[in-house]
């Protein structure tokens, strides 16, 4: 079973040289820490950065320089700042190659829900609806089951949707799952996790073909 850093490490393997990548809040933010040397990417933050760098060292924080999660960050040489309309313009125009974000639920046709629990929690969609409506490639980073122990991979989402038919891949603490035309396909299992455990933790059907390899995260 993977911890949050393990999920981020596995997703970092999906990041290819030359990509522009948008990382959501939470586990997706950690992906930046594990992008291998020699892979040159530019991180986009939807509040208006391309070329986002790591957190500043203490004393170097700048209140005017934050990421979309409102965290203090730095800029890499060659970075650029723009306004929010241009930021979502480049997202809408499919210039961003890969979007990695969290989810409360994903359905087997690639629908995603991550912005509202009616009557309980309403934080808003932020940029997520824009990102999932336009991204070429969307990977969801999330826990396989929620705090109540219920599967977050469903036949159909119960919560209000953020976007439809858009998620391509899901990486959880248990597995890597691809969203295909026929539904969820199990690609890899986390170290020490059995296929049976993954099936039991998944509310939707899983397409399982042949031996499922254990994922390598190092």
């Amino acid at each position: 079973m993977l911890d949050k850093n393990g999920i981020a490490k596995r997703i970092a393997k999906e990041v290819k040289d030359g990509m522009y990548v948008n990382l959501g809040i939470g586990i997706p933010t950690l992906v930046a820490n594990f992008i291998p040397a020699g892979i040159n990417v530019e991180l986009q933050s939807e509040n208006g950065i391309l070329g986002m760098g790591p957190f500043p060292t203490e004393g170097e924080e700048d209140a005017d320089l934050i990421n979309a999660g409102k965290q203090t960050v730095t800029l890499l040489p060659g970075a650029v700042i723009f306004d929010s309309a241009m930021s979502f313009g480049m997202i809408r125009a499919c210039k961003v190659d890969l979007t990695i974000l969290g989810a409360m639920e994903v359905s087997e046709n690639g629908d995603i829900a991550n912005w509202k629990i009616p009557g309980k929690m309403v934080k808003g969609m932020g940029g997520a609806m824009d990102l999932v409506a336009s991204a070429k490639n969307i990977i969801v980073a999330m826990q396989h089951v929620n705090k109540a122990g219920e599967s977050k991979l469903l036949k159909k989402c119960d919560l209000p949707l953020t976007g439809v038919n858009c998620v391509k891949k899901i990486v959880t603490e248990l597995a890597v799952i691809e969203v295909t035309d026929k539904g969820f396909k199990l690609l890899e299992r986390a170290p020490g996790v059995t296929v049976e455990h993954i099936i039991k933790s998944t509310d939707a059907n899983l397409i399982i073909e042949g031996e499922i390899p254990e994922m390598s995260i190092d």
Partner: protein
Amino acid sequence: MINKVVANADEAIKDITDNSTILFGGFGLCGIPENCINALVRKGTKGITAISNNAGVDDFGLGLLLNTKQIKKMIASYVGENAEFERQMLSGELEVDLIPQGTLATRCLAAGYGMPAIFTPAGVGTEIAEGKETRNFNGKEYLMEMAFDAPFAIVKAWKGDSAGNLIFRSTARNFNPLMAMAGKITIAEVEELVPLGELNPDYIHTPGIYVHRIFKGENYEKRIEQRTVKAKV
């Protein structure tokens, strides 16, 4: 050149009456018009419809106007950082319209560019599409979203001059230049009010034609919402 300079925040906002719609620049607490928010609290303007990406935190930014119940309706994309906001929303005291962040930005852009509406794929197939006109372009569905029509915009810039030209600093730019374009009356507070001619015309983000009043702000707190640092090596 036309002189847009006013003395201070109180003078800049003096004709904002109760039940006005106001666009507020900023992202989280970054680049928010601190002086004008404080002046609105002092003036006690009520029934405000606030259009802003976020709603501040409990004791800073738009949270100050929420605490005094001066905001009647909030139009925003993300409001997760404010407990008082959540309480007022769930109890029905506060009307809330949540819209995608890119839609929010582009509805401002459209207003500033003189276009009545935009088409965006954001929200297609979700509850925010309910009741909205859709159109299919090249096999993909889009929602029609209207340009904002707001009597006031209040923004914060780094530098400005008496003609109202503005330059923003780093990610404090965010929604500020967009909202500046979208207001019928746009008020800009700046950290530095510089003499005419000092700003390089090539580097101005917001042309002064979009700005009606400008003043030098005071005592900026510039609070950091999530201070994240890494260890020194």
